[in-house]
């Protein structure tokens, strides 16, 4: 019997449809946490890097990867956790950054703070707290439109 192994490129496309459980507007591929996809014999090996070491979404993410690939008929699947090199927001895709902004979350900036308010685009913004609703976000506010917003921390 001949078993067909889906092409690596196809697997990446499937993973690009798996949303982040906390910020469903971006995919796991946009987030930059899928580091490698390869076949080891008949087993598909996916290498995943956690964002924050204590992020509770990590186990859900693994579960969703398994569910998505099982749905595509992949039975032999192995998830490998890789912590070095550590995840950085530099690995967020440009498409992911644009989706965050549209969703109302200011994308990370090397300067360490949001470029502008994701709602009204004003540059008059101030920090409320260095931490936010998930480990990857901080709380900011716009002093023009007065809306609070999340900022995706740059690490």
């Amino acid at each position, binding site marked *: 019997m001949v078993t067909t192994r889906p092409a690596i490129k196809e697997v990446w496309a499937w993973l690009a449809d798996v949303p982040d459980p906390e910020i469903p507007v971006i995919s796991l591929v946009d987030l930059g946490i899928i580091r490698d996809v390869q076949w080891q014999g008949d087993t598909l090996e996916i290498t995943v890097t*956690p964002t*924050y*070491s*204590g*992020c*509770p979404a990590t186990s859900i993410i693994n579960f969703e990867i398994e569910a998505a690939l099982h749905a595509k008929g992949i039975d032999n699947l192995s998830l490998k956790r890789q*912590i*070095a*090199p*550590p995840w*950085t927001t530099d690995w967020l895709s440009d498409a992911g950054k644009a989706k965050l902004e549209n969703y109302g979350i200011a994308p990370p900036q090397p300067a360490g703070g949001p470029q502008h308010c994701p709602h009204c685009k004003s540059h008059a913004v101030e920090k*409320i*707290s*260095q*931490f*936010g*609703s998930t*480990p990857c976000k901080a*709380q900011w506010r716009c002093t023009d439109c007065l809306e609070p917003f999340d900022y995706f*921390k740059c*690490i």
Partner: protein
Amino acid sequence: MSVPGLIRLGDNTLVLGQRLSEWCGHAPALEEDIALANMALDLIGQTQLWLGLAAEREGEGRSTDTLAYHRDAWDFRNLLLVEQPNRDFGVTMMRQFLFDSWHLAALTALCNHTDADISAIAQKSVKEVTYHRERSTDTVIALGDGTEHSHTRMQSALDRLWPYVGEMFTTDEDDLTDMAALRPAFDAHVTAALAEATLTRPGNDFAHQGGKTGARHSEHLGHMLATMQVLPRSYPDASW
């Protein structure tokens, strides 16, 4: 043998992570509540990496959870500083500032460890702890150089906790890096921050010891572990 050194690092982050999580729902403002819980989460995540590696290398069938939930106070190897009670927000943030200042220096050194697994955990943790130190430093400065009342409370928090600083820089062959060598980096950061906070560094460097060797923990650790461990000890097969 790296296991005792890994357990020291993991016990520090576990005990402080548990202490910080005691604030959940009680902090003086919602933003502070979230910040303390987020730091607790980072520290518990780091614990899983350190104690996970310790358990794997020990090879005696113990897991991260066994190490966290099925050891008694005398088996813990954390610094005395991290087991000290939260008391008020000022004491909690001063404890965090002193710990973060040591922790960042220790992790920076461990990033260059020759053991690739140890270096990888340090590289992951150093990013989170850089952020922790930035926040605890800012808070100590804001409260120290704040009102007369907040200044008095921060000075009293510093005086209370200073006797627990010295233990962080004691070192022996179990440590994964020379902890005594970290003192200049710690002193540089702490001296500058305390000056900006208008706080006075205590003159007496007497240091309580016995946490990282396990010889003499303070009475507070046992009480904390009783709360932390009661569920898995009462229901050993519980899962959630």
